[in-house]
């Protein structure tokens, strides 16, 4: 069966659908754990028999309510996340039994203090120099504290066996996601960036991991079929773009849409929610699964880490693997770490690879779409105006 890979649903509809499924699952006695970030060891929630649900804010609606409490000059993600808890704009938030956050950035850390008034929340203390030896020791201890918190909140005991089983499950999903994304190395690509973001956001909102696996399996089969049947998503003339930083999921994808409307195609995403968040697996055979999780999650390359060397190694590798012709780095306003780190990304992209680079700083509102369009079109023109050597490089394979 040919799969429709152009999800029509808005993020609001996807969330409402998930809320209905969650209510049914809760009626059957299931518990729901809300999480915020790629640093959350999702395996821990699965091992506790709970349903993990992402609660990070990616839409503009809850922001007005959040600004009654939070300063307006905060990251839109921080405001939208808090707003989901206090504005009645999110059908999922009320269904969470408890929430887990991490001390990734200052905005989130301080916002969680206020969020704690709405739901039981546990904040993991994330070390930010992951290459130091003490960092792992500390992070393992934080993992154990998380286990105790979840056991208490959910009234269960989490065994090593449960954890190993959960690690295997998540690895299975991540292997599929990795293969799905690898299909985009093909030129031309079998799927537009915005369609993949739409499909994967939709599939990711799940209460049933096996259903998730089967959706991913079907998606992968469909992409392979398209490549085999030469049924590509767009013309080979579209410049191949690597996306990095933020702005990578349904709801906050205005710039991603703009890029593909203006004639580019996003073939790879690095950064928050990107490919490097699932091509790294936890050790299934480890004697201590908690340690295996700690090792895995300390390798996440958010810009809150310093000096975050591995992010640059990964961008460097992805530019070659995906035959990238230009890089867009998106920063949410007031996200100091991604904003400052962008300078080093530009050095790598422009300096080492000699590729066009565009840094976009924006928020969830639509007020700057006109100005952004000039930048994005100009960036696409940079790649399309007779840059023969780049298109030759693409044509080689």
């Amino acid at each position: 069966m040919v799969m429709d890979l152009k999800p029509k649903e808005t993020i609001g509809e996807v969330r409402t659908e998930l809320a209905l499924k969650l209510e049914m699952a809760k009626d059957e006695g299931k518990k729901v754990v809300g999480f915020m970030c790629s640093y959350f060891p999702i395996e821990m929630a699965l091992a506790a028999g709970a349903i993990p649900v992402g609660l990070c804010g990616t839409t503009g609606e809850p922001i007005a309510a959040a600004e009654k409490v939070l300063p307006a000059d905060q990251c839109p993600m921080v405001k939208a996340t808090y707003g989901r808890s206090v504005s009645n704009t999110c059908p999922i938030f009320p269904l969470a039994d408890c929430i887990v956050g991490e001390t990734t950035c200052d905005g989130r850390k301080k916002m969680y203090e206020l969020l704690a008034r709405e739901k039981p929340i546990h904040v993991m203390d994330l070390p930010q120099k992951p290459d130091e030896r003490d960092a792992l020791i500390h992070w393992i201890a934080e993992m154990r504290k998380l286990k105790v918190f979840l056991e208490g909140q959910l009234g269960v005991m989490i065994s090593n066996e449960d954890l190993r089983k959960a690690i295997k499950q998540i690895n299975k999903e991540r292997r599929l996601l990795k293969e799905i994304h690898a299909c985009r190395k093909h030129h031309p690509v079998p799927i537009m960036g915005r369609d993949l973001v739409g499909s994967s956001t939709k599939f990711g909102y799940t209460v049933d991991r096996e259903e998730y696996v089967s959706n991913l399996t079907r998606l992968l089969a469909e992409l392979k079929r398209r490549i085999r049947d030469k049924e590509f998503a767009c013309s080979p003339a579209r410049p191949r773009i690597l996306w990095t930083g933020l702005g990578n999921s349904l709801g906050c994808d205005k710039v991603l849409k703009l890029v593909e409307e203006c004639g580019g195609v996003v073939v790879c995403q690095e950064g928050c929610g990107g490919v490097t968040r699932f091509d790294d697996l936890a050790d299934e055979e480890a004697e201590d699964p908690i340690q295996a999780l700690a090792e895995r999650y300390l390798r996440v390359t958010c810009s809150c880490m310093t000096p975050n060397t591995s992010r640059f190694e990964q961008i460097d590798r992805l530019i070659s693997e995906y035959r990238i012709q230009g890089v867009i780095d998106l920063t949410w306003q007031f996200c100091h770490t991604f904003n400052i780190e962008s300078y080093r990304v530009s050095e790598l992209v422009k300096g080492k690879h000699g590729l066009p680079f565009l840094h976009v700083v924006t928020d969830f509102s639509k007020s700057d779409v006109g100005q952004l369009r000039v930048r994005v079109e100009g960036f696409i023109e940079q790649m399309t105006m007779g840059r023969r050597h780049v298109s030759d490089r693409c044509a080689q394979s």
Partner: protein
Amino acid sequence: MHHLSIFAGIDVGSLAAKAVLVDRGRIVAKSTIATGADPQQAGKKVFEQALLLAACRPEDIAFIVGTGYGRIALPFAHRTVTEITCHGKGAYHLHSETRTVIDIGGQDSKVIRLDESGRVYDFVMNDKCAAGTGRFLEVMARALELELDELGEFFLQSGRPSLINSTCTVFAESEVISLLAQGETKQNITAGLHLAIARRVSNMAARVGIQPEVVFAGGVAKNVGLRKALEDALGIRFAQMDIDPQLMGALGAAIVAKEEYEGRGWSWI
């Protein structure tokens, strides 16, 4: 067939609409009008005016390229291209040694880097606010009760420029008002404003690097005072161009039209 060697570039900016007609690489007509509240009408009118000056009809034009923020409001344009590419094209066409273009228009400012063949290889733009742009100067001129074209001269007459910290239109206006209240001269305040813009633009330019020759384009480039302030801040001299700098984008659009028509453009998507 003779007439089909004419190409048109129309640049509908936030404050002014410009049109340039080019025949065999030479400018045969140019016109400028205020954009006002109806960019579509302004684009149409400025084009008609240029046609009139060149004594030709719309069907004599081989290809039309629209640019500027109002580029989408030009239904008769064959193609739209951003002002980033167009300013680069225009400056390179007039002066092939151009490697950097600084463009300050009505509501934005940009620094564009070109390679040896005149292609854009990097650029940087201001954020969505109008800090340090033509609109900024308009508001400041009003606060100082000066005409826009007097600002440059006032700057050159200043003995001791005031320190203005902000290029935000709202904050800078209140700085100007308090300086006036303190009895500071209009010359010194004007100079302070120009230096603030020059600082801002030269910081922006540092992001992409300045490589000579440098061309200063856009409506604000007509201001001799700012020209001088920017040259000093950047430590360079701008290339002398034999054109109204405000027409650079429209000229570039006409050049893009020619290349596009002759098939030397880019493979479109």
